[in-house]
């Protein structure tokens, strides 16, 4: 007499468990299945090809009607089980159908997670979980129109690609900074985003959906920053959660999912659970491979093999979008005892990264070429020692055992007509000839004579190898100081390549320029953030995480962890109202020190971090804004009182100072820029030791630059003399813009001037009127996005998490 097995759920995990069971113990059970969907078991992971039109429903069936018949299964389609009565050992469906069991298998799967925002239940908002969802999307796609996919994970991206293939205009909104951040590191995430954008799918990362808009049907979404995007359909693909409701109601132990032991039994020994509804050793799985491994164990246990155990799975992910090859497995976090092997081929869009720990692969990310994914995954799961394979490991299985290539030998083997520099079409023979004929010995000379590596510079390494081959020991490699330990490139090269290759994000720079670390360091990230901000003022979004704390919270950190706050006083002018507000703030927040600075400002020292937003709010109310005393940017314009009061004054130096400051505040620069305007050569505002100074004379304005009074004391040099205020401002803006575009991060203006030469600066911003005008125009453009008061933004709630502790337990203990 066969025992009765009831299965709740007709998905892939249950189907696989039954297949395994029938193979092991044919006829041992009389099986009854309840499935909430009105159809047989189909391959849910192939829904994406159905959506994109590459497959039909019939193609993805796993079990047809005949299969159920052959195995004598009673299948209740479209019947949802509403109760498990463990005492009576029976289950009850919504329509009253009852089935008794000896053994029960709970395979209720998972539910799509719906973000609880306004409008989430409007018609036109769909999840991506089953065939009904796909049909809804296909129906919407018939009329074309716009689709928004919320969620840039595996499912969301597959949905986006499918909808695009169906002719819709698609935008993906993703909360995190890079796509699929749980499976991919930022470099691969960046390549993936690029691939989607190349297909015409818009991707917005760091996009937090605030509400779904529409009256009786969805019409669009609104983001946290107020942006509204129109949409005819919104797909929510932000994740899944185990469906453990029924099990919980039946009194089985549950947490996030149905708790099972290694034998796949729940807290009731007659009840098993399998699939996405399961929580095993604290983990829930949403990929198919672990579910199949669980199914095997369930089947073995049901067949009477009490020794079968499931001990957890290592998972691998593949994105099923035609034309995009992506594979990720294991753990690719950085740790001291781990080593990276990275292969980047930017031009072909290939990125491979293996993470090794004690000579074993613990993680793998492959993008663009995933053929070796299964081989790496196999080495990972088997924990194979790869020290023997290491030299050629990253090239894949076909290179195992081959002799490692000596890069010099490879270059030596190149024929004379092999192209070295693609930009300028320079072949190896030409470089060798130039070196021997002209007696060249430095990279700069070779660049000057042959143009090899003079454009994008990515072939610099190859050119250097050709030089080493030709010159031997006579070739001393250039000693350019690298930007930091993460790259061999210097600041100039990085800046040039950012522009040449139109790199517009930090991951893009790191990927295309072959960064040696996965996410940079505290030296390169602030530099890259500045370079990108400077070069792409209208596109690049400032990355707060790559800014020093002072620029992140817009105040200066002090030795005890408190902050100092300096409100802007234009040109050093203030008035009773502002002074009163400053006095009130100092008293209200118990600010211990109030000091006058060298830049003619008032500094409030010792402000507690959590008080910052309130302090700013009060100062804002009195009309004051941030003084940027913390910024690698335009700081202060110090002035004297000029001809308005002074008996020696020749021009309105105070007015000019205020005008310059109001025009230039908010601008980010490589290092701080301090300015001064003096009304006569007596120079009371000390303009001749500033980064930029103006000394007024009877006939006009003498513009000075490249001074400093810090570690080094340096008097300014005269840049030029101009007759009018307007021209004075134009020259100063052009000078500052040139410095912004050429300066190395943290390099003060006087050091920049020493490096590039004052003559070249003068030739550009004084003598060449067209260049001056263009520089001025670029400065004006960058100011459009720079001049918003950071204090007011934070009073309004931006980056609120920066100012609040996450939790406070200082009092909790006292209360005990």
């Amino acid at each position, binding site marked *: 007499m066969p025992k009765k097995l009831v299965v709740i759920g007709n998905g892939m995990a249950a189907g696989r468990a039954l297949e395994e069971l029938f193979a092991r113990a044919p006829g041992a059970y009389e099986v009854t299945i309840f499935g909430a969907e009105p159809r047989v078991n189909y391959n849910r992971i192939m829904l994406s090809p159905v959506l994109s039109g590459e497959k039909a429903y019939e193609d993805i069936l796993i079990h047809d009607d005949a299969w159920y018949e052959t195995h004598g299964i009673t299948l209740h389609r479209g019947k949802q089980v509403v109760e498990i009565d463990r005492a009576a050992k029976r289950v009850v469906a919504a329509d009253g159908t009852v089935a008794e069991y000896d053994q029960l298998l709970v395979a209720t799967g998972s539910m799509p997670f719906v973000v609880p925002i306004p409008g989430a239940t409007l018609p036109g908002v769909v999840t991506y979980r089953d065939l009904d969802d796909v049909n809804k999307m296909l129906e919407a796609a018939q009329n074309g129109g716009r689709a928004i996919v919320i969620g840039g994970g595996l499912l969301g991206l597959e949905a986006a690609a499918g909808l695009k293939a169906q002719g819709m205009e698609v935008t993906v909104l993703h909360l*995190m*900074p890079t796509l699929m*951040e*749980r499976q991919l*590191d*930022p470099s691969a995430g960046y390549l993936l985003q690029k691939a989607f954008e190349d297909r015409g799918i818009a991707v917005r990362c760091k996009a937090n959906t605030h509400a779904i808009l529409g009256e009786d049907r969805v019409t669009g979404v609104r983001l946290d920053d107020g942006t509204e995007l129109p949409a005819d359909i919104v797909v929510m693909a932000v994740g899944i959660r185990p469906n453990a409701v029924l099990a919980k109601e039946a009194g089985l132990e549950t*947490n*996030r999912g149905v708790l099972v032991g290694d034998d796949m039994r729940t807290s009731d020994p007659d009840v098993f659970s399998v699939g996405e509804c399961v929580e095993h050793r*604290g983990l829930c799985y949403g990929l198919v491979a672990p579910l199949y491994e669980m199914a095997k164990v369930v089947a073995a246990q049901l067949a009477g093999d009490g020794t079968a155990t499931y001990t957890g799975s290592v998972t691998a992910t593949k994105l099923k979008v035609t034309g995009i090859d992506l594979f990720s497995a294991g753990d*690719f*976090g*950085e*740790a*001291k005892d781990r080593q990276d092997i990275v292969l980047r081929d930017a031009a072909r869009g290939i990125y491979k990264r293996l993470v090794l720990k004690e000579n074993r692969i613990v993680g793998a990310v492959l993008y663009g070429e995933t053929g070796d994914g299964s081989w790496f995954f196999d080495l990972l799961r088997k924990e194979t020692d790869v020290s023997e394979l290491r030299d050629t490991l990253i090239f894949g299985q076909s290179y195992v055992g081959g002799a490692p290539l000596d890069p010099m030998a490879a270059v030596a083997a190149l024929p004379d007509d092999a192209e070295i520099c693609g930009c300028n079409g320079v072949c190896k023979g030409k470089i060798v000839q130039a070196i021997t004929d002209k007696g060249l010995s430095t990279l700069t000379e070779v660049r000057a004579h042959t143009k090899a590596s003079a454009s994008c510079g990515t072939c610099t390494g190859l050119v250097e190898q050709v030089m080493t081959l030709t010159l031997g020991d006579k070739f001393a490699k250039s000693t350019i100081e690298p930007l930091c330990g993460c790259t061999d490139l210097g600041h100039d090269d990085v800046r040039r390549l950012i522009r040449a290759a139109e790199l517009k994000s930090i991951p893009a720079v790191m990927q295309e320029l072959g960064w040696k*670390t*996965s*996410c*940079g*360091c*505290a030296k390169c*990230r*602030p530099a890259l953030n500045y370079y990108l901000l400077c070069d792409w003022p209208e596109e690049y979004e400032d990355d707060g*995480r*790559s*800014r*020093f*704390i*002072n620029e992140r*919270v817009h105040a200066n*950190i002090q*030795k*005890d*962890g408190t902050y100092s706050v300096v409100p802007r006083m234009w040109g050093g002018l203030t008035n009773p109202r502002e002074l009163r507000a400053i006095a009130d703030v100092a008293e209200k927040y118990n600010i211990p020190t109030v000091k006058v600075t060298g830049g003619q400002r008032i500094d409030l020292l010792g402000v507690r971090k959590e008080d910052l937003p309130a302090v700013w709010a009060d100062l804002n109310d009195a009309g004051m804004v941030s003084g940027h005393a913390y910024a690698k940017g335009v700081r202060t314009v110090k002035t004297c009182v000029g001809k308005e009061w002074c008996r020696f004054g020749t021009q309105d130096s105070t007015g000019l100072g205020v005008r310059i400051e109001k025009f230039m505040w908010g601008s980010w620069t490589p290092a701080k820029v301090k300015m001064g305007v003096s009304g006569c050569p007596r120079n009371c505002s000390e303009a001749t030791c500033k980064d930029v100074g103006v000394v007024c004379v009877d006939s006009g304005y003498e513009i000075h630059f490249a001074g400093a009074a810090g570690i080094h004391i340096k008097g300014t040099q005269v840049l030029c003399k101009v007759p009018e205020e307007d021209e004075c401002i134009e020259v100063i803006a052009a000078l500052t813009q040139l410095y912004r575009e050429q300066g190395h991060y943290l390099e003060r203006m006087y050091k920049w001037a020493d490096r590039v030469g004052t003559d070249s600066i003068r030739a550009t911003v004084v003598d060449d009127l067209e260049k001056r005008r263009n520089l001025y125009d670029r400065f004006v453009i960058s100011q459009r996005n720079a001049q918003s008061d950071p204090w007011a933004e934070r009073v309004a709630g931006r980056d609120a*998490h920066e100012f609040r*502790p*996450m*939790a*406070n*337990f*200082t009092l*909790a*203990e*006292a209360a*005990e």
Partner: protein
Amino acid sequence: MSEWIDVGAVDDVPVLGSRVVQAASGDIAVFKAADGTLFALRDRCPHKGGPLSQGIVHGHSVTCPLHNWVISLESGEAQGADQGCAHKIPVRIEGSRILLAASALMSRAA
């Protein structure tokens, strides 16, 4: 009192960022690396007591905002030529919640 105390949600800590947990024993900095791994250290640089929570997070390290010491998030040890240790505090993740060892939150005198 249990051995672990829930101090917040995993999502409360920004990637490549940090949040402070105020405790009787002094501030604790909870960090999240680019790969999502969470770490907790005493919010005091072993050099001059700088608040590490305010530093730039890179890889599994943080750079102190006061004098650029680089501290390992895994061990709390200063990297490179510098020597010193910001004590590491055991972290456990349960679902979407961050738990810290209760003993680390209590005042040291207790």
